[in-house]
C-alpha cells in the first residue's frame, strides 16, 4: 500500500482525537450504521446459520483458490473477457495504462474499487495524461478534495454536508452554494452524466467473481457502476485474487450478508452480473471487457493457515462500523488504504508487520469486529498473532517483516520482569518497594505520564496482598 508517506500512527491518531468535528461526524455515522445493521438481523438463529454458511463458503473457496482462479480464467476467456495477472500494484497499473493507451483512451470513469486505491491508480493515470474520474458520489467528493477514502463502503463519511457544500461550490464550475442533500446530489449527477457520455473507458472493482460461470458481480446503489461498466466501449475490472467464488448459488448468501452487514439494506439497488462484452446483435455494452487480477501480498498471506482467514473478507466494513477505536479516530488516522479492524490485520501483512507494527495494537480487543463479521474472521486472534509476529521471528513464519519491530528496551524490561517473578525474594522486595514508594513518584514522571495525561494516578495499597495474607496467617504464601 502507499508507503511513500511518512507513517506515524501515534501522531495521526492523536490529531484525529483532538478534532471534535471529525469525531462528531464519525460517531453519528457509526451509530446509524450499527442500528441499521442490527435491524437487518432480527432473528439471531437466522444470523448464526447464514453466517456459518458464509464462513464455510469463503473457507472452502480459499482452500481451492488456485484451481478456482484457473477455472475463472478459463470461463471468462470462453465468455470473451480477457484476463490479466499482476503480482504488484505497479504491474497492475502498468497493465491498465497499456490497455488504455493502446485504444487511445484519454478519459476514464471509475466505479468504486478499493483495489484501485491500493494501486494509487488515479494519480498514476493522471501522471500519464489520462483523466481518471471517480463516479461513486462519495469517491467523487473526496477526489475533488484530493483525499483518500476514510471508509471502504462510505468513502466520504468523515465529512458533513456543510463541508461537502463548500467543496462543491468551490470545485464545481458554476455551482451555487447549497446544503440541501438532494441539490448536492443533483449537481454531481449533472457533472457525471456528461462524463459517462464522453468517457473512453470505464473501470470498476469486483465484489465476487464466479469461477463456474465466468461472471463478475458488482454490488451498488447509485447506478454509477452500471454506467461505468456499460456505457464506455472498454471496461476494465480490477480485483484482488481472493474474490473468487466457485458457484453462482454461493453468491446469493454472500450478497445477502454483504448488503445487510454493510449498510443495513436487505438488497442493494443494483446487482450487476457481467459475463461478457457486447454480444452479436446487442446494441450497447462495452466492446471489450478485461479483468486484472492483483496479488499484492495476498499469496504470501495465503501461506499461513491461520492468517489466511484475512482473505475471507467480503469488504462489508461492519468491523469498522462497530470498532470503538475506528469510531474515535476515523479512517484517515490509520494511514492505510484499508482502515479499521480489517485494515489492522491486512495492512501489516501487506506493507510489513515491522513497518506497521502499531496497527495490530490499535484495538481494545473488545471483539465487536469478530462478533459482527459476516464470514466469522477471528479478527481479534489475528490481531494478537500479528502483535507477536511484529516482535518475534517465529520459526516457519511467512509474515513479511516478522520480528522487525523488536525493541531492545522492551526485551530488557521483560527479562527483568521475568527474573523478578522467578525469584521469590526479589519479588517480595520489589512489591515491598512499590507499595511504600509509589506515592513518592510524581504523576508526571516519565512513562507514567502517558497514563496520567488524561487519567488520575492510580493509588497503591499500603501493603501488598502477599503481606496481608501472611499477616492473617494464611499458609503457602
Amino acid at each position, binding site marked *: 500500500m502507499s508507503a511513500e508517506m511518512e507513517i506515524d500512527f501515534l501522531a495521526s491518531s492523536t490529531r484525529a482525537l483532538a478534532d471534535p468535528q471529525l469525531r462528531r461526524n464519525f460517531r453519528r455515522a457509526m451509530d446509524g450504521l450499527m442500528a441499521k445493521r442490527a435491524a437487518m438481523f432480527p432473528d439471531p438463529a437466522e444470523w448464526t446459520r447464514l453466517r456459518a454458511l458464509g464462513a464455510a463458503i469463503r473457507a472452502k473457496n480459499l482452500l481451492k483458490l488456485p484451481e478456482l482462479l484457473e477455472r475463472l480464467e478459463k470461463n471468462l476467456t470462453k465468455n470473451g473477457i480477457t484476463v490479466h495477472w499482476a503480482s504488484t500494484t505497479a504491474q497492475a497499473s502498468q497493465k491498465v495504462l497499456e490497455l488504455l493507451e493502446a485504444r487511445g483512451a484519454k478519459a476514464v470513469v471509475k466505479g468504486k474499487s478499493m483495489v484501485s486505491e491500493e494501486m494509487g491508480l488515479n494519480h498514476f493515470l493522471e501522471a500519464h495524461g489520462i483523466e481518471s474520474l471517480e463516479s*461513486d458520489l462519495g469517491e467523487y467528493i473526496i477526489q475533488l478534495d484530493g483525499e483518500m477514502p476514510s471508509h471502504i463502503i462510505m468513502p466520504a463519511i468523515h465529512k458533513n454536508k456543510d463541508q461537502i457544500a463548500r467543496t462543491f461550490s468551490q470545485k464545481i464550475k458554476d455551482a451555487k452554494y447549497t446544503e440541501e*442533500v*438532494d441539490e448536492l446530489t443533483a449537481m454531481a449527477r449533472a457533472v457525471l452524466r456528461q462524463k459517462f457520455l464522453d468517457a473512453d473507458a470505464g473501470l470498476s472493482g469486483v465484489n465476487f467473481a464466479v469461477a463456474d460461470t465466468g461472471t463478475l458481480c458488482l454490488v451498488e446503489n447509485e447506478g454509477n457502476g452500471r454506467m461505468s461498466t456499460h456505457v464506455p466501449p472498454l471496461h476494465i475490472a480490477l480485483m484482488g485474487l481472493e474474490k473468487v467464488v466457485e458457484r453462482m*448459488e454461493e453468491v446469493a*448468501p454472500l450478497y445477502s450478508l454483504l448488503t445487510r452487514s454493510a449498510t443495513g439494506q*436487505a438488497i442493494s439497488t443494483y446487482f450487476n452480473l457481467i459475463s461478457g462484452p457486447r454480444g452479436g446483435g*446487442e446494441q450497447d455494452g462495452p466492446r471489450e471487457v478485461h479483468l486484472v487480477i492483483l496479488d499484492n501480498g495476498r499469496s504470501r498471506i495465503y501461506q499461513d493457515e491461520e492468517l489466511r482467514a484475512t482473505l475471507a473478507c467480503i469488504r462489508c466494513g461492519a468491523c469498522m462500523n462497530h470498532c470503538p477505536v475506528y469510531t474515535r479516530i476515523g479512517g484517515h488516522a490509520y494511514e492505510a488504504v484499508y482502515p479499521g479492524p480489517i485494515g489492522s490485520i491486512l495492512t501489516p501483512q501487506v506493507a510489513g508487520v515491522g513497518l506497521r507494527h502499531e496497527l495490530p495494537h490499535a484495538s481494545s480487543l473488545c471483539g465487536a469486529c469478530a462478533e459482527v463479521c459476516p464470514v466469522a474472521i477471528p479478527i481479534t486472534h489475528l490481531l494478537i498473532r500479528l502483535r507477536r509476529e511484529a516482535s518475534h521471528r517465529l520459526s516457519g513464519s511467512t509474515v513479511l517483516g516478522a520480528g522487525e519491530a523488536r525493541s531492545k528496551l522492551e526485551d530488557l524490561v521483560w527479562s527483568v520482569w521475568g527474573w523478578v517473578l522467578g525469584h521469590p525474594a526479589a519479588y517480595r522486595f520489589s512489591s515491598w518497594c512499590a507499595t511504600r514508594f509509589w506515592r513518592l513518584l510524581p504523576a508526571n514522571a516519565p512513562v507514567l505520564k502517558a497514563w496520567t495525561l488524561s487519567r488520575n494516578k492510580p493509588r497503591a495499597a499500603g501493603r501488598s496482598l502477599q503481606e496481608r495474607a501472611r499477616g492473617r496467617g494464611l499458609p503457602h504464601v
Partner: protein
Amino acid sequence: MSERDAILAGLRAARPLMQALAPVPDFTVVEEKRWDPRERLERLRRGMTAVKTEFLEAGPEDWPQVVVDFVLRERLPNLLFGPHTTEGRALAAAWPAQGPRLEPYDRPVETFKRELFEGMAAGFTTTLGGIAETGGLLLAPGPMEPRLLSLVPPVHLALLRAERIFDTLFQAFQELGWNREPPANALVISGPSKTADIEQTLAYGVHGPKRLVVILV
C-alpha cells in the same frame, strides 16, 4: 515464468501445509425460505415500496393501456422500448397515434448516445421475474432489450408478472439457469438509483433512474 504462473505457483506452494478439510456449506437456511404466492407478492411489494419503487396494477390484456395512461398522466414526451419482444409489439399496438412518441431502441448506442442521455424521458423493459425475500426485479438485457434501456432514461417502467416471483435470489439463480449459463449481462434492480454518501442522508436519482415504476400483471 509469467506473472500468472508465478502467482499460481505461489498459492500452490501453500498446499502441502494445508490441514484443514474443506467445509461443506449447508444451504438449508436459504433453501427453507418459502412463501405462498400471495405472500411472495406482498413481500416483494413491501421490500420495493420501502425503497421508493412505485407500483401500477394491470391485467394481462390491458397493461399496455396502463403504460400509455402513465406516460400521458406524467406528461412524458417519449418512451424508449425494445420493439422486438412480444410485449414490445403489444405496447406498439396500443400506442396512440398522437401525443408522446414511442421510441424503439433498435440501433447501436453509438448512433444516438447523446439523444439517449439527453432526450429520453423514460424506458420500458420486461423482466424475468422478481424476488420475494428482499424485493427486486430480475432482468437479462440483450439484443431485444439493450443494457442501457433500464439505466439511462430518468424513469424506468418494468413489466412484472406476479406468477414469476421467486422466493429468493438463490432460487432464481437455479430456476433461470444463471448458475449454469448466465446471460452476458444479468441484473437485479430493487428500486430507483440512490445514495447515502452525504451524511447518511438518503437521496434518490443519483446516476440511474430517478423513478422505478413496476407494471404489475
